[in-house]
């Protein structure tokens, strides 16, 4: 399969233009939803039935407690009902899910990771897909967004301990933002060929005598929120490489657009909510620069078609779908790992080594370009605070961000945020490679085996969910370790972000002076870009050198 450079460039340009066109209206709409106070009649009914006092706002510890309690309840419910799958109707009828798999899957979907340690076709039936997994696709995406909103409020508000009401934010994000967009996207996908029914179809070819059971299911409705909420858990095992999830290259490009849609509109909403649109433009500019650089690098690495097996095949092909080919799949692979999505339209394990390496680096950046729904924005805001601190040190000024003093407390929280994920990835991957029994789950040899393990923990701790699929993670050890990586990689940063939001909200605003380092414009954007690359990706350089770099450069 030849790399079609004009097609690649046109698709990249089309995505940039489409997102540039919609990020402003969507960003304005998001800001209006988050800043609004009025509830519609159905929402008031919803709040009454749920027992939510929509008029009251929460201080950060209460807001955090709501996030944690809601997520814990969700994990328990998803776990228990998967175990009870045998009681649900549906075709094919499937038994209760294995406890390790159910535990891993519950954590995976509630943390917006959507790592899939199971093959859905033989494990997860229609009822569990619809009632548990698709619902968490909405809610986990919404949780990411509301945490980002709480941080924005922390920056925008002064002399208060109130950050908003978690339940109201969650309901508004789910019903006013995600649900209408997902409905629209799902209908477009059905028109494009994505399946939406509730039963398999028996087919028989009378000429060849071949009979097949063509699978069915509410695929389009799940697919839409899978990409829109940067979730990534496929209805089928092959995910967006499966013809029923992703029937042609046009639908595939639409899926990439949906993956990038909300994360790239959130900076505009941020600018609006803090009353300084230039701040949002700078954040969006950094996201776009990183996305373009990484997508170009992925395209180049795929076009090299490195690898002895790839050479034997006469080029790219293994793990690729013929209707997509190298250009479409390179764009998908870059965007799915630069966000917390993890859907795949090509088997990442079979990508040329450096392309697999770029996918890992994308996640190691902390998925900030444009990142997961909400998590991308709060990740980049934390990095902005660190950049302000570094910039302040360089010129000898007291660091401040949008009129808020960045003191020791704020810096400790930001620094801890940056340390959590690398610590999780490197520790857990390090322990795992020392255990021969665990490594037996990755039958590859040499640097590629290490890459599979490193990819798994990078994907888990960053809540991405894509995989080098050669590793089997359904056993007790890996499902527990990856479960821990997903859980801690999601909620430790959220604790730190909300604590930071609380500490910022309490402050009065310091008026900008000649000593203030401006946090907009190309100069700050470049600093932020540099800090992002140096602080995050370089933490992993030794690990990358042992995996994809060794495989890609030593041939």
């Amino acid at each position, binding site marked *: *399969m030849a790399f079609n450079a004009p*097609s690649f460039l046109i*698709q990249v340009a089309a995505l940039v233009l489409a997102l540039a066109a919609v990020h402003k209206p969507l960003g304005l709409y998001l800001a209006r939803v988050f800043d609004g106070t009025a509830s519609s009649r159905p929402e008031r009914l919803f709040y009454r*039935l*749920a027992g939510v006092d929509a008029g009251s706002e929460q201080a950060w510890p209460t807001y955090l*407690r*709501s996030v944690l309690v*809601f997520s814990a309840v969700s994990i328990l*419910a998803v776990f228990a009902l998967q175990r009870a799958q045998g009681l649900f109707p549906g075709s094919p009828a499937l038994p209760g899910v294995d406890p390790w798999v159910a535990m891993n899957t519950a954590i995976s979907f509630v943390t917006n990771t959507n790592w899939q340690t199971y*093959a859905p076709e*033989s494990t997860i039936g229609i009822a569990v897909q*619809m*009632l548990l997994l*698709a*619902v968490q696709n909405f809610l986990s995406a919404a949780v990411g967004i509301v945490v980002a909103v709480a941080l924005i409020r922390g920056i925008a508000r002064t002399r208060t301990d109130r950050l908003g009401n978690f*339940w109201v934010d969650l*309901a508004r994000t789910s019903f006013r933002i995600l*649900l209408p967009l997902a*409905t629209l996207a799902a*209908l477009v996908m*059905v028109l494009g*060929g*994505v*399946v*939406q*029914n509730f039963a398999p*179809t*028996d*087919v*028989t*070819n*009378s*000429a*060849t005598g071949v009979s*097949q059971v*063509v*699978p069915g299911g509410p695929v*389009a*409705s*799940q697919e839409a929120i899978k990409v829109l909420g940067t979730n990534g858990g496929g209805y*089928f*095992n*092959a995910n967006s*490489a*499966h*013809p*029923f999830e992703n029937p042609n*290259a046009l639908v*595939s490009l639409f899926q990439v657009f949906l993956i990038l849609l909300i994360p790239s509109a959130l900076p505009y909403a941020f600018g609006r909510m803090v009353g300084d649109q230039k701040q949002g433009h700078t954040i969006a500019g950094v996201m776009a620069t990183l996305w373009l650089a990484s997508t170009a690098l992925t395209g180049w690495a795929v076009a090299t078609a490195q690898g*002895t*097996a790839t050479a034997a095949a*006469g080029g790219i092909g293994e793990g690729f*779908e*013929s*209707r997509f080919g190298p250009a479409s799949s390179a764009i998908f692979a870059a965007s799915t790992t630069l966000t917390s999505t993890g859907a795949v339209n090509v088997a990442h394990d*079979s990508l040329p080594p450096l392309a697999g390496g770029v996918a890992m680096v994308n996640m190691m950046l902390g998925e900030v370009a444009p990142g997961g729904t909400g998590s991308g924005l709060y990740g980049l805001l934390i990095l902005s605070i660190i950049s302000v601190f570094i910039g302040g040190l360089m010129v000898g000024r007291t660091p401040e961000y949008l009129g808020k003093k960045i003191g020791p407390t704020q810096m400790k929280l930001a620094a801890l945020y940056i340390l959590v994920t690398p610590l999780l990835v490197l520790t857990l991957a390090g322990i795992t490679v020392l255990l021969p029994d665990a490594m037996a789950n990755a039958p590859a*040899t040499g640097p*590629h085996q290490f890459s599979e393990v490193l990819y798994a923990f990078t994907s888990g701790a960053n809540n991405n969910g894509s995989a080098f*699929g050669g590793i089997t993670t359904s056993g007790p050890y890996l499902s527990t370790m990856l479960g821990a990586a997903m859980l801690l990689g999601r909620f430790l940063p959220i604790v730190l972000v909300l604590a930071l939001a609380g500490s910022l909200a309490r402050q009065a605003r310091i008026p900008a002076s000649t000593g203030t380092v401006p946090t907009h414009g190309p100069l700050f954007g470049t600093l932020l870009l540099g800090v992002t690359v140096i602080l995050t990706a370089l933490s992993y350089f030794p690990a990358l050198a042992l995996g994809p770099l060794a*495989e890609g450069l030593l041939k």
Partner: protein
Amino acid sequence: MNALTGYLRQSGTAIRFLFLATVVLGLAYPAAVFGVGQLVAPYQANGSILRDGAGAPAASALIAQVKDDDGTQDPAWFHARPSAVGWDPASSSASNLGPNDAKLTDAVNANRAAVAEAEGVQPSDVPADAVTASGSGLDPGISPEYARLQVPRVAAAHQLGTEAVQALVDKNTSSGLAAFLGQPTVNVTALNLDVAAAGPPRS
């Protein structure tokens, strides 16, 4: 004690919230998409099912349908790409073998030799898509080059002219925007149905 009652009250809210959200997002939403989908695009929503001359469902246009004997595809028909799951629509997977994996090199070399022999061509003439397993294992598409290699074999098996069979290949080759964004492919599932309609295989 205060913290504990706080957690308990929050848990109650969380359970009720989750239940109500499930009714909206887990039931009403997929049902609405199903309803509109069945009205507006029933063919796509139900799996793009192709029917035979008698009107019975014969295959899905999106899923590879292969007549094989233990992995060896029937020489009377156009062949799909190799599959890590034996073209079984009840599963889907790639091989997940790395680009330097010796097992993958061996599999690719074996596939190349088998295709060259089946089509009576030089091994170097076999395109990459013919020797590599697809991402889903259910890819119904092959490259126009691979289809061209197969035309003489299928034409002979059905006692059809090669021009007539090549015309069927061209008819089932994707074109337009989707083919430009991805790559042009020949839909083997639909093609084999057209071949069957043109003439039964010589026994």
